[in-house]
């Protein structure tokens, strides 16, 4: 607890609250082929806006990709997530752009409307904070737009259509 007579120490600070800055507008499907979606990134106007220009104070903005209502009633492969894959390229050619892997264990159970999870599907949070500086250094970061690609992992059977309710981006 900082003492009032010690002005060098920081005073009480507001909590870090996550602010949604971009999301897809409609649900989409993943399949055997790579799928790419684009998020429009809006300028933060809430708590995340307060962090703008505070890098000199060693306050790093956390960035999260949130994949919601990931839904399928058949067994499905895990999916790899990539950011800003160059147009026309295969995501697998850019392992440096991979930010996460979505495991599908329990997906059928969580997608069953009659099941114990009410058919909500699965949701994943991918921390992409550490990936942003690399993208910026490679001049592969657009502060207004983010492209997210999904590719299925190894799977012996037919890859079913997996519904994704929404992909959203949060600054914290």
């Amino acid at each position, binding site marked *: 607890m900082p003492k*009032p007579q010690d002005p060098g120490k920081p*005073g*009480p*600070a*507001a*909590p870090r*609250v*996550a*602010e*949604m*800055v*971009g*999301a*897809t*507008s*409609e*649900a989409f499907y993943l399949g055997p082929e790579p799928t790419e979606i684009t998020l*429009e990134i*809006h300028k*933060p*106007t*809430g*708590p*995340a806006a307060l962090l703008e220009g505070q890098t000199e104070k060693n306050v790093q903005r956390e960035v999260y990709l949130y994949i*919601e*209502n990931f839904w399928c009633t058949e067994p499905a492969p895990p999916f790899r997530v990539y950011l800003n894959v160059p147009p026309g390229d295969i995501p697998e050619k850019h392992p440096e752009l991979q930010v996460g892997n979505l495991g599908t264990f329990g997906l059928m159970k969580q997608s069953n*409307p*009659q099941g*114990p*999870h*009410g*058919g*909500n599907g699965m*949701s994943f949070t991918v921390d992409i904070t550490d990936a942003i500086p690399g993208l910026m250094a490679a001049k592969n970061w657009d502060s207004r737009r983010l492209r997210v690609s999904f590719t299925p992992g190894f799977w012996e059977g037919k890859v079913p259509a997996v519904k994704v*309710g*929404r992909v*959203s981006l949060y600054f914290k």
Partner: protein
Amino acid sequence: MSPVREGKSLRIALQSFFWLHPEWWTIGLASVAWAFMLPHTGPNSGHNAHHRMTVVEEIGNWMLMVAAMMLPLVRDAVRFTASASLWARRHRAILGFLLGYFLPWLAVAIVAAMLRQADWTHTDAAPALGFAAAALWQRTVMYRRAVLACHRTWPIAPLGWRADRDCLSFGSFIGLSCVRTCWPLMLACGFAGHSLIAMTGGVVIGFVDEWRYRQHRRYPDPPISGPLAMAAYYGMLAAWKLVPALAA
């Protein structure tokens, strides 16, 4: 602590509260609804069941009862709606959710108001039967599925008419799930003439069910002692009024 620092702490505490709890005004709406209901429920608490109103008055009172009893129970869904929206449209999203939420309840309110025009719904036996039905309903698979649906999330578009549509759809989905969960309980409270005892009992039963769901996070097996106790109370009231009639 210096007054300046104290003022800053208070400002930050308030800011944190409003940031972390965008649903604050939903709880405020529920409090206003209670404030409107209390004068109506309190003084006549033993005779509410016999109090007659027009269809429009019944619908108005029903919706106030829904706001008072149900809004505190859907605070998580309201908070989700806000956090899934762009910061500038968080409260607009909550408003859309609430409009959607009240729609299914309005349909039930119309049916309940029509039922209340019948004489039998103005007896103490009617809420007793309603609470007994609520106890039975809580033991069915339909009830359990409805409770799970009450905790669903919904993809919400970030902007434009799609965002408004999604908030309305999410609100009506949760509203419909709440109707499927609580219809016998709310009918019992309505038949009790929105009495303070019935409404307070209903809220306690709702919070206990919610707490149990949070504990187990799967098919809840709610205690039915609450609705049964309420059924017994109104059953005794009905029997008490029957005794002189039988003696005569």
